């Protein structure tokens, strides 16, 4: 599946995001306990684990939606303070969701355009007129969005309302929306959940291409072990909110704890 001459990730980049000793609980229920790992620039990092291992909570912590009670998160070398999620977005973190969270009433284009909101600057006055700077800006960003549409091969559904699209396409549009933010770190929450083999292959190709073409660092949660082993450079394994392994796909899949917790269980 890899393109020839491809050598990404193996040459470790600098640390983009560091998670240190993070614990998170909801009213006494521990979701994450003392987890540390890092994500390096340019790699595809997978977070795996059985159901309820705290994977999605981990993503929610990373993009500032949950605030851990303990521990430290450093993004681009800076320790992060408590903040609202949109700050994470403006720092360059984008994500997709386990159960597609598209804007159902809007078209594919508008969904992806919404991902450009942060980069659009023209003021209210020009927006009222939708001419001059506002129109120019709209056109400039539309071009960018069209590049993404081209990239993801969703031209045919460009103007359709996303609510009516099949699931696999919705996931693609959601990826497009995240890409529109030109993120430094892209978080994908089970990008291939509920897809058939062909759709999974397409999605894998897109993920690799995103990583390859735009150099975007990607952290993804995935259940399909085959996909994870194929896609990712490094894998961190969680179980009951604790980290039980961390390393290359080969290392991780050889780890006895991981085999016990996850790989041994067919699903």
């Amino acid at each position, binding site marked *: 599946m890899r393109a020839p001459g491809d050598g990404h990730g193996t040459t470790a980049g600098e640390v983009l995001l560091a998670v240190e000793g993070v614990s998170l609980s*909801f*009213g006494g229920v521990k979701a994450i306990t003392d987890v540390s790992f890092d994500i390096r620039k340019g790699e595809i990092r997978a977070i795996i684990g059985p159901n309820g291992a705290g994977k*999605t909570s981990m993503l929610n912590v990373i993009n500032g*939606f949950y605030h851990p009670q303990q521990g430290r998160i450093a993004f681009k070398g800076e320790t992060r303070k408590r903040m609202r999620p949109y700050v994470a977005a403006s720092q360059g973190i984008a994500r997709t*969701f*386990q159960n597609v*969270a598209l804007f159902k009433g809007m078209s594919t284009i508008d969904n992806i355009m919404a991902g450009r909101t942060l980069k659009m600057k023209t003021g209210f006055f020009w927006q009222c007129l939708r001419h001059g700077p506002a129109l120019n800006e709209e056109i400039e960003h539309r071009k960018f969005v069209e590049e993404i549409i081209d990239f993801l091969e969703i031209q045919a559904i460009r103007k359709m309302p996303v609510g009516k699209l099949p699931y696999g396409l919705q996931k693609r549009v959601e990826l497009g929306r995240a890409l529109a933010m030109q993120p430094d770190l892209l978080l994908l929450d089970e990008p291939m959940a509920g897809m058939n083999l062909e759709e999974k292959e397409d999605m894998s190709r897109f993920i690799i291409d995103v990583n390859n073409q735009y150099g975007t660092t990607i952290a993804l949660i995935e259940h399909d072990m085959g996909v994870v082993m194929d896609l990712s450079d490094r894998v961190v394994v969680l179980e009951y909110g604790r980290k039980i392994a961390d390393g290359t796909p080969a290392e991780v899949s050889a780890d006895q704890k991981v085999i016990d917790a996850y790989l041994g269980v067919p699903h």
Partner: protein
Amino acid sequence: MDILYKVLIDPFVQMGAAPDLLVQTVWEGLVSGVLYALIALGFVLIFKASGVFNFAQGIMVVFAGLTLVGFHEMGVPAILAVILTLGVMFLLAVSVERVVLRPLVNQPDIILFMATFGITYLLIGFGELIFGGNPKRMIAEELYLPTGSIEFQTLGGFVQLQKIDIAAAVIAAIMIAALAFFFQTTRIGRALRAVADSHKAALSVGISLNQIWVIVWFTAGIVALVTGIMWGARSDVSFALQVIALKALPVLILGGFTSVPGAIVGGLIIGIGEKIGEFYWGPLVGGGIESWLAYFIALGFLLFRPQGLFGEKIIERI
């Protein structure tokens, strides 16, 4: 400084200076709180069982009251009129279920909410068409409700309690107890509680969703009739009540949309709060603040505890 004194200190000085007045005010607040609570109760019943935010509860109170008086004016004896009115409320419940709820099943909440607006307007229209737009006197004596007042001396002054108010409080308490009994012990009651949790669960009890809807709307109708009698006995039965019934909304916010005790406690807090506010702070701004104070109390409350008094903390999930 003066204004601060007037707002922050003076009212409490007054309360201390004339505790009898304070007791009187609290009592009046309590009584209107009971009525708010009764309307809120109707909301909660329906919301719990069908997820419908029933905006029409207020007009149902008016409608029930008007129907009762209307029957009596036609020469029907009071008790029989009550029974006939209950029949009308049952018919209303059945038609609401048939005409409105059944075709709208599985629609988003907002749509059902809007549908109850439609019901409201229909009831207003029919009520006005049949009974005319003028206020009517409630047939309190005919229903053997006590009138007059008792007065007793306490705390250096007189406190006057209307007997009808006492009756209202007592009847409300009895009805709430009856409802609690109904929910806790009967099969239908259990089904109703089950349906609040999951529609499938309710089906497994062997009662269809449609029946449940009829039952809750009818129950809400009974509550509305009782509320209508009580309220009508205190003032008159008129459409103005419909706007006052909106006060049930802040009550619900305080108490939570699904909690019966919440509705009662919320109703009392709002009732007492706005009476005291009006009495002690109202004059500072020219009076009449009763019309909006309840909403501000609820709003302030919302900002600090969005889940209501008895609700659980909401964890947002993605």
